[in-house]
């Protein structure tokens, strides 16, 4: 687990350094993800330890958003003053983005590939 975590941090660090050195607007971790993806393509896949550690980390990805989400307490006043545009824009725009992406992708892939569905919960 420690070796896998170290590897993830090394890739994140490399991503941060590249983002800053080249003044890219993309966050370091996203570049780190791309770099690790390339490394996996070259190596042919992750080792067992990396697969397990990343599986555990991603299984509770939701938890990692809780501290930033709690920041809502700072914006009580603005949200109270502008709740209508903020709320309606958030809901409608999220639904529109979901629908447009899904419909475009569905229309373009419909005849070419057979959808595979797995049992979800």
């Amino acid at each position, binding site marked *: 687990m420690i070796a896998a975590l170290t590897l993830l941090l090394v890739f*994140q660090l490399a991503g941060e350094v590249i983002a800053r050195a080249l003044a890219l607007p*993309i966050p370091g971790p996203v570049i780190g993800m791309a770099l690790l993806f390339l490394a996996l393509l070259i190596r042919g896949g992750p080792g067992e330890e990396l697969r397990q550690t990343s599986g555990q980390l991603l299984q509770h990805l939701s938890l990692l958003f809780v501290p930033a989400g709690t920041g809502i307490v700072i914006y009580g006043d603005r949200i109270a003053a502008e709740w209508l545009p903020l709320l309606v*824009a958030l809901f409608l725009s999220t639904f529109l983005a979901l629908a447009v992406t899904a419909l*475009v992708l569905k229309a373009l892939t419909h005849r070419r590939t057979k959808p595979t*569905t797995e049992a979800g919960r």
Partner: protein
Amino acid sequence: MNPNLEEIWVYLSTSPLLGLTLTLLAYQAAFWIYKRVGFHPLANPVLISVAILACLLLATGTPYQRYFDGAQFVHFLLGPATVALAIPLHAQWPRLKSMAGPLLIALVAGSLTAALSAWGIGALLGGSRESLMSLAPKSVTTPIAMGVAERIGGLPSLTAVLVISAGIIGAVFGRGVMRRLNVSDHAVHGFAIGIASHGIGTARAFQVSEQAGAFAALAMGLNGLITAVSLPWIMPWVERLFAG
């Protein structure tokens, strides 16, 4: 309060231990509820955890910054978790490659819809300029959205809250929207939720299936990429177009 308890409270309220432990406890409680209701999307664990913690902070008068001093240890793990998304992405690579063209077109359509509709709907309803510019990047992952908001005249920390709200909305209602649109392909489902609801949508997509999760991770990364590059020059142009 008995003086002894008061001393304990003074210690706890200044130590990072309390913020960190409360975050994990709130999440455990939220996840327990989520499991009890059979993983019903309305009982989204991020939503419930944030509600518990926000109530606690407001009730005890604790400043957010003091809470975050402890909670930042959890927040920090977002970085390595983002890097770890490369592993499911790699596992789905053959399917991703076979769909490259359609994915790119859907990416551009979805990304523009997410940013422009948020701005437009907010503008129609009389939102302030700062709020509108904080809304525009709401569908991309928090660090990118905050950077974009800063460059186009929004408030980065308000953006963080809006991003997380958009994530929760997509995670809660995404499956319902997909069912209504007759989408049964997990790849399409995952990609759409990753475009609209970034990491929180991706977390939810992984609960649907690994394939949905991998496509969501890809969508989140690509949407972050093109939003970071395109919004700083699209938004001033959009504003000028509608200002007159």
